[in-house]
């Protein structure tokens, strides 16, 4: 799933990888792949994550990991960092999710009464990146679908998600709702349909496997 998601990154893109699963996508890119990774705390051109003994106390990503630079990196303040996001210079972001609606609504910042740490930069990434990809388990720990007809939780942004990668499938948000594009190896269409909380548009013909 993470390896498959990495193939969404086209040469030349500026990409922001959210905290959690998305961060691991970078491990699946070739060393000379032409891409610029952005982190909202003020860096374009993220280099490899460093172990504590090699870390620079002043150089972290937005998730607090100690990262490095590459030749051509630039540092900037938080206003410029989000200027880049809001003005259309961020080609792609990959985010985690609590819920994704068939309309592309995303909820990933607040579970009322339970967990309310604040949205951080998530709203702007979801609302303004040119392409928004969600990486998530298909269901939550209790087995309830995370892909639903509508979000029950407070939303992060409306109609923002383009594609969802889960442990079971690759699903696009289309004007017709969720559309199945690919299946994880060994997973059946019935299993995906069962685990999805809204109608799933099936493709004509075979479904490719990843």
């Amino acid at each position, binding site marked *: 799933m993470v390896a498959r998601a990495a193939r969404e990154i086209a040469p030349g893109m500026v990409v922001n990888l959210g905290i959690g699963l998305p961060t691991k996508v970078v491990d699946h890119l070739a060393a000379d792949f032409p891409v610029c990774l952005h982190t909202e705390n003020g860096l374009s051109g993220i280099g490899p994550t460093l172990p504590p003994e090699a870390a620079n106390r002043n150089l972290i990503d937005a998730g607090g990991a100690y990262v490095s630079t590459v030749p051509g990196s630039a540092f900037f303040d938080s206003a410029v960092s989000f200027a880049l996001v809001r003005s259309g210079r961020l080609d792609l972001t990959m985010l985690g999710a609590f819920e994704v609606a068939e309309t592309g609504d995303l909820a990933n910042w607040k579970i009322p009464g339970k967990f309310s740490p604040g949205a951080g*930069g998530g709203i702007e990434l979801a609302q303004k990146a040119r392409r928004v990809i969600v990486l998530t388990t298909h269901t939550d720990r209790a087995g309830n679908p995370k892909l639903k007809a509508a979000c029950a939780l407070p939303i992060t942004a409306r109609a923002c998600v383009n594609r969802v990668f889960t442990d079971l499938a690759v699903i696009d948000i289309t004007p017709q709702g969720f559309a199945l594009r690919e299946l994880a190896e060994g997973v059946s269409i019935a299993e995906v349909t069962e685990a999805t909380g809204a109608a799933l548009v099936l493709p004509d013909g075979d479904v490719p496997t990843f």
Partner: protein
Amino acid sequence: MRLPDKTCAIEDAIARIPEGATVMVGGFGVPGTPFTLIRELVRQGQRNLTIIKNDANEKGMGIDHLIANGQVARLITTHIGLNPRAIEMLNAGHLAVEFNAQGILAERVRAGGAGLKAIVTDIGLDTELAHGKPRIEIGGQPAMVETALRADAALIHAHRADVFGNLDYVATARNFNPLMAMASDLVIAEAEAVMPLGDLAADEVHTPGPFVDHVVGLTEISEEYQVVRRQA
């Protein structure tokens, strides 16, 4: 003409912050947090503060000392997920917290620093962060007004300062510091090194000296900056 010297003892600089003040504090996570200025504000004990900061640091670190010491009445922030004390106090109603989208907090602070009254944005229009904010149409599209933020004082952590208050920052320790250094009536900068006039190249200054009131040279670097060994 020569540029005036703004170096100042930390006690005198922080003593200018009154009870009930609104205080901006630089930093995003650890980098750029003015730990030494915060410690002095804890020592002096001004209460009923409104703190404007990206995050609430972690428990036992940075502005958590102010929160633990009961000095903070209100926090304007974007994310407090790494500080369980702040979350607990928020949920218990002991700390008023106003959440902002991160880039909008940055722009509201910058707008204050730029002498603007407000910015107009569509960020968060469909979320609960929009509650109570004036709506306005721009080019036929819905948007909302986010007012500028200014503070009575700003606590800034710089990499280097010259004695006039020109500042630079290093790596991701820049974050909110240059924005807050424009947006407060009293700007206090701690610097890891204080240089004579002329030792910061004019093209490489991040915060121009006219914005800064007091420069505090650090005699040691707070241990709170140490690289943290977190579990993977």
